[in-house]
């Protein structure tokens, strides 16, 4: 048996709920009107702004993409009447047995800033080829752009190259590390304009003592 709710209790509850409902509707209405008014009065979609900060860090990065030249083994054949042999990285080979080499060293910049490049050789012809200067052996290099514009600020190719090294010159002036000699005072880093070519030429006297000798070529990159 379902008992009947006392009529006075039901009536009070209903009144209470009605008041709550009216209040809720009133608050919602006020809120709606308020929002609508503010929306209508601006006429614009509100815009939030944000800042995105991004810093690209500078980097100096250089790389000998061609760091090897191998003439192999050979000699100056005096029975052919030769007194010396000239070998270089442009294909010249004046002796017997050595390889024809057609590629010099290539220095590439993967930096994101222009840099200066110095080159140093750990020794000259006396240390590398022949200990007797009277024999006349030589050890030289020349530096050019492997990609046009690599050493030319302001769009003038090659303008920042050391002009005295555009033809073969003895490395003797560049044996003091780390100074050596400035070969490019504005080495660019952009794609297809970031390679220098270092050609090497040696002249071996027939009187030079046989043996295997060595030299280190150091490239030093520094901020402008």
């Amino acid at each position, binding site marked *: 048996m379902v008992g009947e709710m006392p009529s006075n209790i039901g009536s009070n509850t209903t009144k209470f709920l009605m008041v709550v409902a009216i209040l809720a509707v009133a608050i919602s209405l006020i809120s709606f009107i308020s929002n609508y008014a503010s929306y209508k009065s601006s006429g614009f979609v509100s815009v939030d702004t944000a800042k995105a900060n991004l810093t690209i860090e500078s*980097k*100096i990065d250089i*790389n000998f993409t061609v760091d090897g030249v191998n*003439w192999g083994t050979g*000699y100056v054949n005096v*029975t052919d009447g030769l007194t010396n042999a000239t070998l270089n990285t442009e294909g010249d080979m004046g002796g017997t047995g050595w390889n024809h080499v057609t590629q010099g060293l290539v220095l590439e910049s993967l930096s994101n800033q222009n840099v200066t490049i110095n080159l140093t050789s750990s020794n000259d012809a006396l240390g590398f080829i022949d200990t007797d200067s009277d024999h006349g052996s030589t050890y030289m290099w020349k530096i050019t752009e492997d990609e046009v514009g690599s050493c030319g600020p302001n769009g003038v190719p090659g303008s920042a190259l050391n002009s005295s090294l555009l033809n073969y010159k003895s490395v003797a002036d560049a044996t003091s590390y*780390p100074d050596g000699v400035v070969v490019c005072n504005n080495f660019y880093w952009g794609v297809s304009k970031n390679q220098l070519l270092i050609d090497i030429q040696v002249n071996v006297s027939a009187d030079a003592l*046989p043996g295997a000798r060595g030299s280190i070529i*150091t490239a030093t990159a520094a901020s402008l």
Partner: protein
Amino acid sequence: MKKRFYLVFLLAFIIGISVVSALGVSPGLKKYNFQPGFETEIEYRVFANTGQELEIYVIGDLKDYVELSKKSLIGSGKFIARIKLPESIEKPGKHRIAIGVREVKDEELVAGGAIGTSVTIYTSIDIYVPYPGKYLEISLEGHDANVGEPINFILDIISKGKEDVMVIPRIEIYSQEKKIGNLLYSPRTIKSQEEVSLKKTLDTSNYNPGKYSAAAIVDYGGLATDDFDFKIGELVIDVVDYSKQVFIGKLQPFNIQIESGWNDMIDGAYAEIYFFNETKFFEKFKTTSTSLVPWERKTITGYFDSSNFTQGVYNANITLIYYGKQIGKSSSEIVEIEFVKAKSMSMWYLIGGAGLLIIIVLIVLKFVLKNAKGTKSKNKKTSKKAK
């Protein structure tokens, strides 16, 4: 000789027995304004071949104020440079501290017959010590544009003095050394060692195409100035030069040097040429087609049969046809071209041959006369003996 053969020089040149030389260091450059007792730490990242031994060191007049967390690395890695500057530095201006990272090469390997390559990187820390009083350095940058396009100038102002400065910067626009416009900035104070970049835009709608110069002038008690040259372009190609003389004969080249006056790419540029005089139209032909990057100067060539021409001056109508941003345009001009007969080499051969013949005749003559003289004197001696 055989013995000497065995004394010939024997040498193995082997460059690059060692691994590829490659080295990177970041950051490459840091700049700081000097402050008494300034302290900071910079973390360096090094990129190197695996196993490569590296030496790290400091050089520069302020090297004693730098401490390195590591003096060496094997392969890639990180290290920290701690800087603690003194309370004062006497000499104003830029002081450069260089952090050197050097590949260490095996000396024994070198002694064993190799030439190796090696890389050293110097990253820089520049410390700017302020000058006494007021001192400003400025630089102005801009760019080329076409008529109607805005040109944005950026004026960098760096206060390198110990005192703050009040500045009223302006940019003056010049055409052929005549001032034709001004861009004015608001007055502002630049604090000691502060660096600001100020932007200003030039509306080029009322400018004619051509070359201009912008001069930034910053009055701060003294004057700081910098210039920037720029061009305002239009879709046009000019004829700079052309073949002014053509040989009469079959298939002759005709060159036209052209120059773009447009700050964008021009495609499909070629020329149509036809020759005429007062009475007759002669020949019509086209050159090769080419594209031009902004402001580029290039030579285009066309070939035509000139065997129907006689010696003399003819008119040539050169019409250039080209496209910029899919808009086609053409321009024409009439020039005078001289047609000449190709110089024949036979005349020179004839003169050379005649000269050679004369020389031979003279030599023979001399020889004959000498012989005749010798015979005469011999005969005289013989006749004396007979007496």
